[in-house]
């Protein structure tokens, strides 16, 4: 057994769970699955460009921790009057959280949900038919410490931001297994932002998150994941979404100024007349690494999906995009779009991009593309002829490239937060094409 698996096993056994018996059994089974699967290597096609060799050598001390001061940036980023569910180092922070009520929406920690909604949670955890089922999902299931359960009840439409914050403040190497479950009953619409932030913390830790979203008939989920973690950290995040009839998933993922990141976003379209939108921006520098894997599974006819992944790479950063589109044989009249656009500004930056289309229906429209390039010299020159220095021109154009994505997000409250997180990467832009 590898040292890391042994390490996780020790942490699992040490944890005092107080869980119901079924959950202990479930977690034992899942850990066995994780052991069997093992840590993926680059020989695994899905991990070809994201090498976990370094992670495999790490040693982690705990699942949660209570050390560390709240950084100043946190108070700028989070509006304490908004609905916030805040976890520091894997534990609910009652002081920072502000779980106000939204009429028609149940919002609680997973720990509470395990008591109050036990049967429902049990059923959801047992589901394993949406998207990815890899080793880290097994690990998350085996080690879940806490998380959030959100349920929008039939007919509820809310414009209010539900902000889930995972803040790491400790210097200890922890393994934070966060589980988020979002259920939208029929004809509902809500906005959820999940933030993974460390703000200046340089600790080595692993966030292994799993978010499951169930978007039922006529419902719309606006889901944003924003991530700015320690440069020494590892983030492995899985988001799995199922979309039923006439429903919409509007997803956005921001990764900026982070460490070693792998995000997987899988969406299964189960009901006709639905749409899945997966947009993303990554803006990275130094030796930061971000790998975005997506999978859109069209299982029924007459649906659309739209993937736009944009990246800005400075210095020696590395990005991976692997986007899958499956169109099942009955999924006629599918319209599916995928584009990965990369601005390569750093001399040592590089991108690996790979579209993967598997289409079994004949009456469909699927387009995909990928671009990797520098800024257009004629755009830079145009700004220069108006008095803007070359350096500022590069900054302005690259900022435009980034902001254009962020401005598609519906809630302004989320837009301004993401722009705030983007600032360090924008300030670091000038290294590139000078």
């Amino acid at each position, binding site marked *: 057994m590898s040292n890391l698996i042994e390490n996780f096993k020790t942490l699992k056994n040490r944890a005092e769970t107080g869980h119901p018996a079924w959950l202990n059994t479930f977690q034992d089974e899942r850990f066995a699955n994780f052991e069997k699967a093992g840590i993926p290597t680059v020989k695994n096609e899905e991990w070809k460009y994201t090498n976990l060799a370094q992670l495999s050598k790490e040693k982690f001390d705990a699942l949660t921790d209570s050390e560390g001061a709240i950084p100043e940036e946190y108070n700028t980023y989070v509006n304490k009057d908004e609905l916030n569910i805040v976890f520091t180092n894997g534990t609910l922070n009652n002081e920072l959280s502000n779980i106000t009520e939204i009429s028609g929406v149940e919002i609680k920690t997973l720990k509470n949900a395990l008591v109050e909604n036990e049967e429902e949670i049990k059923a959801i955890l047992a589901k394993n038919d949406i998207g990815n089922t890899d080793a880290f999902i097994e690990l998350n299931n085996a080690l879940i410490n806490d998380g959030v359960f959100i349920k929008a009840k039939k007919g509820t439409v809310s414009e209010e931001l539900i902000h889930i914050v995972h803040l790491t403040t400790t210097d200890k190497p922890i393994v934070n297994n966060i589980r988020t479950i979002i259920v939208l009953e029929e004809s509902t619409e809500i906005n959820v932002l999940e933030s993974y932030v460390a703000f200046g913390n340089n600790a080595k830790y692993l966030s292994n998150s799993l978010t499951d979203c169930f978007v039922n008939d006529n419902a719309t989920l606006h889901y944003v994941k924003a991530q700015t973690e320690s440069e020494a950290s590892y983030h492995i995040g899985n988001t799995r979404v199922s979309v039923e009839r006439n429903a919409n998933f509007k997803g956005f993922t921001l990764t900026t100024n982070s460490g070693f990141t792998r995000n997987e976003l899988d969406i299964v379209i189960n009901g006709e007349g639905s749409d899945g939108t997966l947009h993303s921006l990554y803006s990275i520098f130094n030796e930061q690494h971000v790998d975005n894997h997506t999978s859109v599974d069209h299982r029924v006819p007459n649906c659309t999906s739209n993937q736009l992944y944009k990246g800005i790479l400075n210095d020696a950063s590395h990005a991976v995009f692997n986007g899958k589109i499956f169109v099942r044989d009955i999924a006629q009249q599918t319209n599916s779009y995928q584009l990965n656009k990369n601005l390569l500004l750093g001399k040592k930056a590089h991108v690996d991009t790979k579209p993967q289309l598997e289409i079994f229906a004949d009456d469909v429209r699927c387009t995909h593309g990928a671009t990797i390039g520098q800024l*257009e*010299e*004629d*755009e830079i*020159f*145009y*700004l*220069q*002829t*108006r*008095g*803007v*220095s*070359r350096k*500022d021109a590069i900054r*302005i*154009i690259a*900022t*435009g*490239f*980034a*902001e*254009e994505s962020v401005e598609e997000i519906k809630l302004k409250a989320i837009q301004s937060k993401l722009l705030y997180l983007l600032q360090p990467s924008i300030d670091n832009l000038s290294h590139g094409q000078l």
Partner: protein
Amino acid sequence: MIEIKNLHAHVEGDGTEILKGIDLTINAGEIHAIMGPNGSGKSTLSKIIAGNPEYEVTEGSIVFERDFKKIDILELEPEERARMGIFMAFQYPVEVPGVTTSLFLRTAFNEVCKAHGVDEMDALDFNEYLKSKMAMLDMDDKFINRPVNVDFSGGEKKRNEILQMAVLNPMFNVLDETDSGLDIDSMRIVADGVNKLKNDNNAFLVITHYQRLLNYIVPDYVHILHDGKIIRSEGKELALQVEEKGYDWLLS
């Protein structure tokens, strides 16, 4: 205001000479037109004045005079030329996705302010200033919140160039084939803008293939450029002769 002497240039990395010794002097308050057949070097001249790095000057000078100081601009970066008061309206204005026209204009305006030691304007004051310029040019303010030139019609792009000219208030203006791709109404609007901006302290160099634009922007001098050299310079009547007889009679 500007004095071009014996200007020779070729495309960077390609030895073929495009400009083969241009001499041209333009004074404040004047409008000059440069006409010429395709491939004569008209656009190259405007790009070199603006500082496009795709061209290399091998001989000659371009001296710009401002506040009784003479400066050879060839060693200056494009932005330094712009801040001194040199402006080029592009033949093909460039699209800049994600950057709104108002932010773009304000950034450019404040760069010029900074260069001249004048206080920068905040967004609120600048918007008022911008509105006054748009009113002067009879322009609709709907596109100032749209990204620069993105999804603009040909006419809107050219009007945006004139708006930039109005906002930055440069001394020496080059219009590089501004009439290309414009219908007659758009051309009239663009020309009206230029006529409103013209005064005794600034100067214009209008580069065009056709005489049409010069009906609206009336030049003091017309120069014919051929094979990288100015082969004839006269008053505005020369443009009419070109319209009537084409270029061939001048070339033989």
